[in-house]
């Protein structure tokens, strides 16, 4: 069987174009309504918190003139665009400064900041030197934990932002191992920097770091709440409440072909959309069935110490209320 034959066969499937377009438009309308009913009210807050962060960072060390600070605000807001945790921690001066440098082929990478909040890690780095590619098309491709096959996601691309001296990048990830250490080193290797190259994914790290990370104070709450549905046993084991993030550890017994989907709601019933990460941190066989341990991280805290979860598997749904 070759690709052409497969493509030719696919072409035989008649496309009801009008209906497909209607389905696309219907889906977008549905998504748009969901967005409207739960407006991303964090947006304005994110920018103002970033503004506070930049004022601290800039005025603390550089004493820049006001116009310079104002010029930096959109930059940091953009750098931390997808990392609300970094925005919150920066405003509380809780991001550790670092100066770890690696060089390769005329390009220097310096890890300048890192935080470890609950189960969420953030790393900021500078890139200087001879970087290939148009200014707004520069990416860094990195791996963590030397692509440990036990970890679900180990490689990712991140877009870099141009600065006066080169580029700046920021990555956020969830700590992928079951045990959360107080203090450790994160193996972080940059494989490629510049215009995206297809061969990057087959290459080894060239700028290699063991980034020191120290966990910020956090609270662990035992939950031990079990729900059963669709032949699965879902147990919410514990909750890790960090400064600006929350992590929920749960197990799914009987996991295999059946998948479990979790939808989160705050205490006002608003669905929490975006920024969450749900990854497997352990898998073993217990009493003949597969037991998967997963960690779901949410880039925010819950002042009212309450979270509602809709668990779905197959056609079944259950609602769990977690209070701590």
């Amino acid at each position: 069987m070759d690709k052409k034959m497969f493509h030719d066969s696919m072409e035989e499937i008649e496309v009801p174009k009008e209906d497909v377009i209607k389905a696309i438009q219907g889906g977008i309308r549905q998504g748009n309504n969901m967005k409207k009913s739960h407006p991303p009210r964090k947006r304005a807050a994110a920018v103002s918190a970033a503004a506070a962060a930049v004022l601290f960072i800039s005025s603390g060390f550089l004493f820049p003139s006001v116009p310079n600070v104002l010029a930096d605000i959109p930059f940091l807001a953009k750098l931390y665009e997808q990392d609300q945790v970094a925005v919150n921690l920066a405003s509380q001066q809780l991001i550790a400064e670092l100066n770890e440098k690696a060089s390769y082929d005329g390009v220097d990478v310096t890890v300048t900041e890192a935080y470890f909040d609950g189960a969420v890690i953030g790393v900021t780095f500078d890139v200087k030197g001879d970087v290939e590619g148009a200014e707004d098309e520069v990416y860094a491709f990195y791996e963590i934990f030397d692509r440990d096959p036990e970890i679900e996601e180990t490689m990712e691309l991140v877009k870099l932002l141009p600065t006066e001296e080169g580029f700046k990048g920021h990555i956020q990830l969830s700590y992928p191992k079951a045990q959360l250490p107080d203090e450790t080193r994160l193996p972080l290797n940059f494989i490629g920097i510049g215009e995206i190259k297809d061969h990057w994914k087959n290459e080894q790290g060239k700028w290699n770091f063991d980034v020191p990370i120290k966990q910020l104070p956090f609270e662990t709450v035992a939950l031990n709440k079990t729900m059963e549905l669709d032949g699965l046993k879902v147990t919410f084991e514990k909750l890790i409440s960090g400064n600006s993030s929350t992590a929920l550890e749960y197990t799914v017994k009987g996991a295999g072909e059946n998948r479990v989907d979790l939808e989160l709601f705050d205490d006002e019933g608003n669905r929490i959309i975006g920024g969450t990460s749900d990854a497997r941190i352990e898998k073993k066989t217990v009493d003949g069935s597969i037991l998967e341990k997963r960690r779901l991280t949410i880039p925010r805290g819950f002042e009212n110490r309450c979270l509602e979860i809709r668990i779905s598997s197959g056609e079944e749904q259950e609602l769990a209320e977690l209070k701590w």
Partner: protein
Amino acid sequence: MKETRLVRKAIKGNVKAFEELLILHNEQLYRTAFLYAGNREDALDIVQETSCKAFLAIGQLKNEQYFLTWLTRILIHCAYDVLKRRKLEKPVEQLTELPAAGKDGTAEKLDLMEAVAQLKEQHRAAIILFYYQDLAISEIARMMDIPENTVKTYLQRGRKELKIKLGGGQDGQENVS
């Protein structure tokens, strides 16, 4: 190039650009959904659900060049969800809406699609991503969250299953690695 511009606009929240992008890929979306669902109604449901989920998540897409791969990943998850909901009502083996056989060897091609639709979920995903979406093994591995060797195994098993279903002779000497 036009597509890259549209993706950038869509990431920034431009609804029209997002719609245009999906319409641009409407045939591929529908045909992939159809391979999973085996019937028009469910395939359209999958397309609609994919459009909704992708719309909600487009702001998180970090690299516009991987838009289609990202979209396909969402589509496959939606297909699993829709299929699970339908499982009891409509076993995959009872597919009846695959296009009728025509002349000029069309029957052989249609048999192939029918056989693909009956593959095990994981094998089917690997076969579709490799043969239809033209993704590299490493990319499929990332997308399915499995090691590259497992992708190769799925492809080999998928091809073997297809060969059996098609009565032999379809499998070439192609090397997947």
